């Protein structure tokens, strides 16, 4: 009884900290829903409807969704294929291949940014979806993640299917992929978060309002030095955060697993 009360007290003691952690987010929501009307102050969704009804914000949101959907989908397919080949295949040159993945994980993305930009410019791909998708379609960390996971799965099921005469493609899609579903969820949600929030590459690879992603559009809007319209800006920030919140609520365990996968646990 005393123990239970002590532990309830612990939750109570932590709550000021939680308030500190959430106060800025609560402030964002407050600014977004507050609509000044003359002297009086009312709450409403006016900022949201203004934002989505006119101007480029709906476009930004749509662009972010399209790019994220492609990047997640392509990673689910490609990172799994490559991870599977690395976990099971025996071929010459496997070592240099693993090394290429390690190098990619270690080198900061800013080093490759200028050549990727020049390449996209030369191919007239600035301001296109492929330029925003292709550089992220096969992520090195995701390959590493899938390889780790697949190495832990015994190969008996695949071998049995092989004995039954199933083709390698069929084995991959119908035997392996269903078995690695938990890893696919981890990879999917983390890839979504990283891509939805990504900023530097989309900033560099887009020029026009029609192709900006949500973070880029918001950031450029916030940069305007004179009379920033906080209400609309916070509404936009909130729209950008809602999918993140949804992913967080649905896949919190998988997000943590993805983070821990990088620690070698």
């Amino acid at each position, binding site marked *: 009884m005393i123990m239970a009360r002590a*532990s309830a007290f612990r939750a109570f003691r932590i709550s000021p900290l939680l308030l500190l952690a959430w106060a*800025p987010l609560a402030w964002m929501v407050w600014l977004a829903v507050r609509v000044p009307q003359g002297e009086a102050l009312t709450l409403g969704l006016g900022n949201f409807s203004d934002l989505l009804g006119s101007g480029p914000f709906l476009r930004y949101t749509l662009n972010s969704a399209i790019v994220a959907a492609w990047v997640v989908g392509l990673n689910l397919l490609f990172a799994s294929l490559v991870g599977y080949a690395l976990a099971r295949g025996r071929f010459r040159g496997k070592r240099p291949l693993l090394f290429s993945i390690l190098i990619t994980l270690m080198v900061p993305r800013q080093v490759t940014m200028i050549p990727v930009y020049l390449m996209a410019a030369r191919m007239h791909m600035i301001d296109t979806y492929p330029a925003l998708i292709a550089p992220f379609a096969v992520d090195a960390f995701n390959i590493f993640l899938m390889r780790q996971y697949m190495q832990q799965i015994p190969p008996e099921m695949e071998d049995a299917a092989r004995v039954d005469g199933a083709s390698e493609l069929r084995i991959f899609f119908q035997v392996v992929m269903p078995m690695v579903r938990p890893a696919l969820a981890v990879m999917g949600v983390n890839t979504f978060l990283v891509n939805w929030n990504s*900023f530097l590459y989309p900033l560099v690879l887009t020029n026009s309002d029609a192709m900006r992603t949500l*973070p880029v559009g918001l950031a450029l809007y916030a940069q305007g030095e004179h009379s920033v319209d906080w209400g609309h800006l916070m509404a936009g920030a909130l729209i950008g955060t809602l999918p993140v919140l949804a992913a967080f609520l649905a896949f919190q365990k998988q997000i943590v697993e993805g983070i*821990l996968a990088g620690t070698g646990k």
Partner: protein
Amino acid sequence: MSARGGAGAGLGFWGPAFLLPWLVSFGLFGAYPLLFSLRLSFMSYNPLNAAAQKFVGLQNYVTAFHDPVFATALRNTALFALGTLPVTTTLALGLALLLERKFPMRDALRAGFFFPSVVSAVVISILFKQIYSPYGLLNSTLRGAGFSPPHWLEDPRLALPCIMVMDVWSSVGYYAVLFLAALQAVPAEIRESAVLEGASALRVFRSVLLPQLQPMLLFVLVINTIRSLQIFTEVFVMTSGGPMHSTTTAVYHLYDQAFFRFEHGYASALAYILTGIILVVSLLQARFLQFGEGTGT
């Protein structure tokens, strides 16, 4: 023909075929850009002025060495890393210790502290730009309490610390999750026997938990350092590197040179210098902390 024999043969023709996506991706977006930017770093290369493209040897690296803004940027980046690392790490560890034991609503509280760290850097930066703005949340609160507060982001002495505070706020939850996982991996028996022997809570932490947390501590310090050395989005949104370069970081300077001035040769040299610094610092940290572990016990 055994079942194992099938696996032993690998995937046959399909093995290399399955690898193709990575080979293409690494070639186009890894190896080629890496080598091309190395080449660029030895060139005077401005895409707006194609006629002036030529090899200049080590000139860009020499220029970087004498570039006062780059020196400022490196100093700001180092300040940012040195100022945030100990604070973030300590707070995250403390938070993990608070959230580790069993108590009502623990999982909800854990989620509550973790969530801010998955929100996008752009959203956080916009939010704090408002909070720090002359008539933002912070100053209206301070004015209400009778103070006459400064203009945080417009003051060269305060702008960088303001961004650092925001960074601590937004990343503590992330590292707390990592520490929580490490704490849960500590075998319960070790801790219980120490408690039974009458060790104080502080003693249990120092002698039992801390040694067990060492690998995670190293990991947290290394990834947080790498992240700190690459800080960009926050600066772009909140201050554009100002006032008077007081918040210009290494990557912001690189971006400025590459995409405002279009000095792609010089910016590539900066990128290589930054990569070198990141590799050296993370190797040193790994060496140093493992050495500490070896002599500490």
